[in-house]
């Protein structure tokens, strides 16, 4: 693997392994995957960001708190990127 590989660019299989969350975290991401209807790509991206958050906290293991923060950024993006119907002027 090239030296320039980052959490954002490493292969999906590796991030699944490196960012495997603890039991609480697994429960959260499972739940979120259903309620937020995460695609496989979205799932991996959440893991990538959670891995970075755990790295910044100096933790070996990705925990619930990291996943929650990662998902919070995702939520905001989706709300913006999805082209919503324009609010009607009278509303």
């Amino acid at each position, binding site marked *: *693997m*090239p*030296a*320039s*590989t*980052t*959490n*954002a*660019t*490493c292969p999906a299989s*590796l*991030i699944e*392994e*490196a960012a495997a969350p603890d039991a609480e975290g697994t429960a959260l991401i499972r739940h979120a995957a259903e309620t937020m209807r995460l*695609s496989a*790509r*979205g799932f991996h*991206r*959440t893991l*990538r*960001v959670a*891995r*970075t*958050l755990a*790295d*910044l*906290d*100096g933790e070996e293991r990705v925990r619930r708190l990291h996943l929650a923060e*990662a998902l*919070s*950024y*995702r939520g*905001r*993006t989706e709300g*913006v*990127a*999805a*082209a*919503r119907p*324009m*609010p009607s*002027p009278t*509303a």
Partner: protein
Amino acid sequence: MVTRVATVAFEGIEARAVDVQVQIAPGAVAFTVVGLPDKAVAESRERVRAALIASGLALPAKRITVNLAPADLPKEGSHYDLPIALAVMGAIGALPEDALSSYCVLGELALDGSITAVAGVLPAAMAANGRGLGLICPAATGPEAAWAAGDMDVLAPRSLIQLANHFKGSQVMARPRPAIAAPAGTMPDLRDIKGQEGAKRALEIAAAGGHNLLFNGPPGAGKSMLAARLPSILPPLDPRELLEVSMIQSVAGQLKDGALSNRRPFRQPHHSASMAALVGGGLNARPGEVSLAHGGVLFLDELPEFTPQVLDSLRQPMETGEVMIARANHRVTYPARFQLVAAMNPCRCGMALEPGYTCRRGRTSVAPRNTAPASPDRSWTGSICASKSPRSPLSTSSCRRRRKARRRPPPGSRRRGIGRAPGLPARPCRLPPPMRPVRPP
């Protein structure tokens, strides 16, 4: 008899071996170049003729045929002037023929016989070194060529006469030294940003993990300002990345004075940039912004202003880390693994996300206004989006921790950390509450 000189043709950042063969034979006086040359190559014989005459050499009144082999590889650019001129000089006995056999040659000629800088000297030098050859390149690009290997023979003459004197032994040239670019002034500092703790946190996470990032907020909140400060907290390029990034810059003709820089690239194309400028192409299939951002950041400010074609063209590089440019008769691939940072307003008046506002003018989306969305899946817009809620300020300890976070080492290996990010405030700064734009009455 045929005189041969080694040179290269570029395919992306790869330099392929090309053989310049010159034959001077009796017959009608002519000077022809064959072997799939493009226009700049065909024009080369006029420059070669003029430069030889200016250097005091007359072309023999015979038939001169130049062949660029292999004939099926397209030859583009003006760097064939020098190898053609040297091969002709070898053929007429103005240079010892065996002197040329251990060099790969590239360079453009001016009409007065001086040698002008060309793009792609670094990859050419690497390829030459791989083939066990030395390199003859223009003087201005000598420092670039010297990077290829410490013990490689590099000649960087200013003119044909200087090179002829070197081979005669009357004025021997010194090997150029590898140059590193001086840090270009001070970078804008993250310290200048007041408030926006959430956005700063997002910027820090993006810098640490190489994640893509979208800033979405009202005008004047500091989105462009934040993005401009990302380079100051990115780690420097490591030596292998440095070489790859520099090869792209070399092929693009963007290495200033042949000096390499270990700064991560930060490219900010304007939204009116053409497709060729962004993904590459045009004359000589030069690398575009996505490749010039390789190893660094591609910042798209005012994201919804970019055309859907341009945004769609980012999908392939973002998925594969490479960009492919299709040409009439061949394809060129350049590396293009960049971190995408984008900024936009949530709606046309910019206030849609503010509490208490309903925008009457319609939300912006990454799909352009007045056009149907170009792609059903827009998840590429980012894995992080800056939140505007206040959070704890940055601290030195988080800066230290970032070092660990940037690289994900392969399983079973340990890698050394990267250097301290230079731009962060040394102490946690006390900041006023997040800035909000003033509301109209």
